[in-house]
């Protein structure tokens, strides 16, 4: 199989000493970032992205994806020990994880969480290894209309499947498109929406938006109640780890089910958060121990963690093979690839084999390395949260400011970060989702380019989006996703009518 050969080449690249070094560095940084509020996955990757410009793209993306894993693991630590979800998808982990910690079983909970994450991510990486080249080969048949329809599907999924009111999602998303349009127009070379300002010529960078919205915004949200970290001791020891490992295989069915849920949801832009909730809910109904969920049942930790990590990892599949990111962090990684001049999508698999397979190989290794690091270093990471707010908050602000500055060496960007932060705080409190805005800023230019090229080919007629089987199917899927809530409602009513 050609894939296996490519994968082994990839391992050869990933196992170079420098790359192993950045792998561990990335994981440690990622866990620290995942543990600290305000510096979660997308934001942390965004801040550290400019620092990797001096490395080769392969090493850089290995480090960044390991930061991503580390952040995924880190979110579980704070969820279990402090009942503070480090990431939105760790919320479901707090349901059973924190009660377990309160009962003195923190070590079991943490081991279960990390191991489940490892299993979920591994499952997803294997799936990526097998499926990504197929998807990429398939996507080579895509023209501009097909490519635009994939973006259309992605954005419709956001509007239809998110829990926020649809018109707020629409507003948020289109604001992102508008921000993406500011500056130089790719197609005509014309300046637009700059209103004569020199600073706006370069437009709005997604990295600044991410650091502001997800970084500063998160911090502002979490300080409403004041920050008081009163957490349990971690209670990790090799004995606890081994004991828990003996117990975990009992839950293989839950694990497998969660892997599948996670992979499925991760590929669509819905992502890791709904995956973890859905997996928890289904496990609760399906398990014989379902009644104990919420009181400290270990299965209640296995289900969401496996799903969340499977989803977080499989979000990279559409990013690599189609150029459509499945999550804000994947969007940041995508932005990074674009900055390095690498075009994610089917051509990446053809033209940049070493890069793609080096990355996929590093996902396996990074996962293993990550598990080792967290199992051994949890007490250290947990101690970070004991640093009082008055010290850690300004330090986080400084890190964010540096992150914003290093993107374009511009102090204006730091001001912009602050503006995005306040906007993000207000918007989140009013239930406007931020992820679609970020995705729109990253993908806006590409989506528009494909849209315009399609219209050019069809002489201005929208029928090009219904011109062949492939593009019609994807557009229809998009419309179904868009109107899903109404469709689901109708189904429920029909079922009710049939039942009575």
């Amino acid at each position: 199989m050609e894939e296996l050969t490519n994968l082994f080449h990839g391992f050869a690249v990933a196992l170079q000493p420098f790359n192993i070094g950045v792998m561990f560095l990335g994981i440690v940084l990622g866990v620290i970032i995942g543990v600290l509020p305000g510096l979660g996955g997308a934001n942390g990757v965004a801040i550290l992205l400019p620092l990797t410009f001096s490395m080769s793209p392969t090493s850089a993306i290995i480090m960044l994806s390991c930061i991503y894993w580390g952040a995924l693991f880190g979110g579980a630590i704070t969820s279990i020990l402090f009942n503070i979800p480090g990431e939105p998808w760790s919320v479901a982990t707090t349901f059973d994880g924190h009660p377990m910690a309160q009962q003195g079983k923190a070590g079991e909970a943490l081991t279960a969480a990390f191991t489940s994450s490892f299993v979920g991510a591994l499952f997803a990486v294997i799936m990526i290894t097998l499926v990504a080249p197929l998807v990429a080969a398939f996507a080579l048949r895509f023209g501009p209309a097909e490519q635009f329809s994939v973006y259309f599907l992605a954005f419709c999924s956001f509007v239809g499947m998110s829990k926020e009111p649809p018109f707020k999602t629409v507003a948020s998303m289109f604001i992102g498109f508008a921000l993406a349009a500011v500056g130089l127009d790719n197609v005509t070379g014309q300046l637009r929406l700059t209103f004569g300002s020199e600073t706006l010529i370069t437009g709005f960078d997604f990295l600044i938006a991410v650091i502001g919205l997800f970084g500063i915004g998160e911090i502002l949200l979490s300080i409403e109640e004041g920050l008081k970290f009163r957490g349990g001791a971690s209670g990790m020891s090799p004995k606890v780890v081994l004991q828990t490992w003996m117990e975990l295989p009992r839950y293989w069915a839950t694990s497998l089910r969660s892997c599948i849920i996670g992979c499925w949801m991760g590929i669509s832009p819905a992502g890791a958060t709904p995956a973890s909730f859905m997996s928890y809910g289904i496990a609760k109904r399906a398990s014989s121990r379902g009644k104990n969920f919420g009181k400290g049942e270990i299965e209640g930790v296995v289900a969401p963690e496996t799903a969340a990590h499977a989803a977080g990892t499989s979000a990279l599949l559409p990013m690599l093979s189609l150029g459509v990111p499945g999550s804000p962090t994947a969007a940041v990684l995508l932005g990074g690839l674009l900055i390095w001049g690498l075009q994610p999508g089917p051509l990446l698999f053809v033209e940049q084999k070493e890069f793609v397979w080096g990355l996929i190989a590093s996902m396996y290794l990074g996962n293993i390395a990550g598990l080792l690091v967290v199992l051994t270093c949890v007490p250290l990471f947990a101690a970070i949260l004991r640093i009082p707010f008055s010290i850690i908050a300004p330090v986080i602000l400084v890190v964010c400011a540096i992150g914003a500055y290093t993107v374009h060496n511009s102090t204006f960007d730091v001001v912009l970060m602050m503006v995005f932060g306040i906007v993000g705080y207000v918007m989140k409190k009013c239930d406007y989702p931020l992820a679609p805005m970020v995705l729109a800023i990253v993908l806006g230019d590409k989506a528009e380019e494909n849209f315009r090229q399609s219209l050019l080919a069809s002489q201005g007629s929208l029928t090009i989006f219904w011109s062949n089987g492939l593009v019609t199917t994807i557009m229809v899927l998009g419309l179904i996703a868009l109107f899903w809530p109404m469709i689901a409602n109708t189904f429920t009513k029909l079922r009710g009518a049939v039942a009575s």
Partner: protein
Amino acid sequence: MSDKAEGENRAGPSRRGVETGVAIATAIFAVIVIVGSLQAGIDWGVEGPRAGFFPFYVGIAILIASVVNLFYARAESAEDRFADWGQLRQVLSVVVPAAIYVAIIPWLGIYVSSFLLIAFFMRRLGNYGWHLIAAVAIGVPVLTFVVFERWFLVPLPKGPVEAWLGF
């Protein structure tokens, strides 16, 4: 305990008011986008749709969404609070120093500004002794300097103090 919470913390800007404000703000943003698109031209050119074509419809979409959100906002109950004044005070106690910090970076450089920010937070919110404050507030910028300027070779904005020190 619950009586105190109910009595004292009920005050705060109403959800309805803030949501209305946000909807109006997005509508104004939409109008700005539409005006800018018209300036860039929204008709057909030689290379297909002109630069303002796409942003124009984006602006229209934002405007429609803003109007819908405005209707929903007016329908909200006047009882719900966006946040309590207490919570907002907490948030402002971070936003104001942070905003000042960001504003002075172009003048004083990032290292001195960070020193001031950390010192301010540790003193105002943490009430630490001057020794600890000095250690952290000087230590962090110095560490940052070493990591970024020497190791990553990424220059950060500097001000008069650094110039005086010869960097």
